[in-house]
């Protein structure tokens, strides 16, 4: 327990972008340091478009073709053996072998990941067989508080909250050592969000390392799910530490402004807008956004 499972050091990702406005590089991650431990929940937070989901793609070996990755991003097994997930030509292939079996993934908007013409049970059964999972579909659904009737339902017959929990059951099918959940509570009402975050907490308590990607700081703070929180801005981690510290006494100005925008903290609009990550200047930081906003006449 409490051994490191995901470790990033100097992790940098540049994704080629080709649009009708021209070509460029999306600075999706810059010098990211991140570590997730078994038995813990590490939340990665930040505004939409800051690079959180790309971090998940990197861990899963699903970065788009042509992406340049530098630095280290490793899966470390319980005996301490490292598997680099992005380094070299075959990084993505190594990550693909771990995907599902060792690193489970709960995708954003789970409804779009299921086949609409097959029941949840038939798809979950297939997933368990393919991954060689030890647990049967009934068992997996019970773990996420879904009744066995859901097995016979088609995806459109389940509510958003039920689908979100079903997605967690799919992610647990291979008995993963790491669970990566991308925005698992967006669009859920407070009670369902609390229930879903509680499930992720239990997965961590049972020994897995959980990485929770979310922009919903309110639910995160209310639920007390996370042990550690890292705040991402424009592809960089600006602050990282124990959840109680980062969510209550943040030290970085960006984290402070992000928390002040929460309804419970006064709904204060953040200065300026988040930048496009395409061809971001190398030394870009939140200070530049503050300066630009001040120039445009922003005042609290």
């Amino acid at each position: 327990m409490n051994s490191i499972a995901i470790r990033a050091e100097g992790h940098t990702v540049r994704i080629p972008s080709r649009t009708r406005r021209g070509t460029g590089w999306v600075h999706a991650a810059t010098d990211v340091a991140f570590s997730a431990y078994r038995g813990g929940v590490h939340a990665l937070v930040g505004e939409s478009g800051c690079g959180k989901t790309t971090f998940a793609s990197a861990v899963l070996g699903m970065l788009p073709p042509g992406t340049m990755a530098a630095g280290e991003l490793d899966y470390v097994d319980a005996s301490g053996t490292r598997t680099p997930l992005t380094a070299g030509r075959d990084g993505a292939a190594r990550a693909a072998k771990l995907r599902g079996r060792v690193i489970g993934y709960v995708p954003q908007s789970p409804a779009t990941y299921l086949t609409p013409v097959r029941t949840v049970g038939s798809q979950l059964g297939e997933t368990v067989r393919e991954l060689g999972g030890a647990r049967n579909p009934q068992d997996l659904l019970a773990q996420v508080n879904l009744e066995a009737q859901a097995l016979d339902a088609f995806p459109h017959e389940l509510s958003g909250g039920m689908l979100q929990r079903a997605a967690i059951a799919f992610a647990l099918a291979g008995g993963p050592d790491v669970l990566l959940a991308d925005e698992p509570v967006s669009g859920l009402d407070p009670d369902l969000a609390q229930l879903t975050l509680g499930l992720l907490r239990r997965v961590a308590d049972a020994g897995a390392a959980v990485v929770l990607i979310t922009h919903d700081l309110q639910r995160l703070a209310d639920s007390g799910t996370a042990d550690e929180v890292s705040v991402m801005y424009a592809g960089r981690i600006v602050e990282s530490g124990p959840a109680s510290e980062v969510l209550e006494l943040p030290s970085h100005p960006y984290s402070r402004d992000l928390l002040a925008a929460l309804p419970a903290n006064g709904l204060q609009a953040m200065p300026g807008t988040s930048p496009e990550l395409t061809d971001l200047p190398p030394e870009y930081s939140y200070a530049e956004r503050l300066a630009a906003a001040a120039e445009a006449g922003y005042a609290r």
Partner: protein
Amino acid sequence: MPAELSAVNAGFSYGGTPVLRNVTISVPAGGQIGLTGPSGSGKTTLARILAGLLPAGEGTVTCNGQPVQRPWKQKGHGCGIAMLFQSPRASCSPRLTLRQIIAEGAGRTSRGGRARRVEQLAAQVQLTPDLLDRYPSEVSDGQLQRACLARSLAAEPGYLICDEATAMLDAATTASLVRVISSEVESRGMGVLALSHDRPLLEAWCTSVTSLAALSAASGER
């Protein structure tokens, strides 16, 4: 003539199944009213009735004393009721640029006047000029919702109905949209009805917050 958007004893049924019964609500000009209720409680139906998108099955809906009509029957902008929807993707044409989307709301003016108005609105909702020539597929949900808000405000509506308009957005974008809406309330006396299942958000945003269940119960006692 009371300056308010109101429904009195409004009711609505979908094919015999009642979703709203005896709802009485008033949104005064210059007021920001929050309305909560769980998913499926009829919030969106009420919003559509108040906006004239759906005729009320029972009761009356009036805006500044005049009955609210279906939008295509109103002359000009009617008394000016605008609506901001939950999904910006579903409420924009994918074939129009953000500039054209915002201009849709600006009505008939000279071309130069409209271009200036679009730029002014874009600045108000913090959309940078380079985003205005993009299509919806080339911007984020937050950026597209900013454009939808600019479109709603373009005709200077007397009332704005926000139906879970920030449910898909992060807290930072939510706070900045609320700031824009509140400043319209302060500067022009626009009335706002905000519907959401997020009560803490409404309590931080609105001058008064009530639940749909409480509205129906209160009118039932009369």
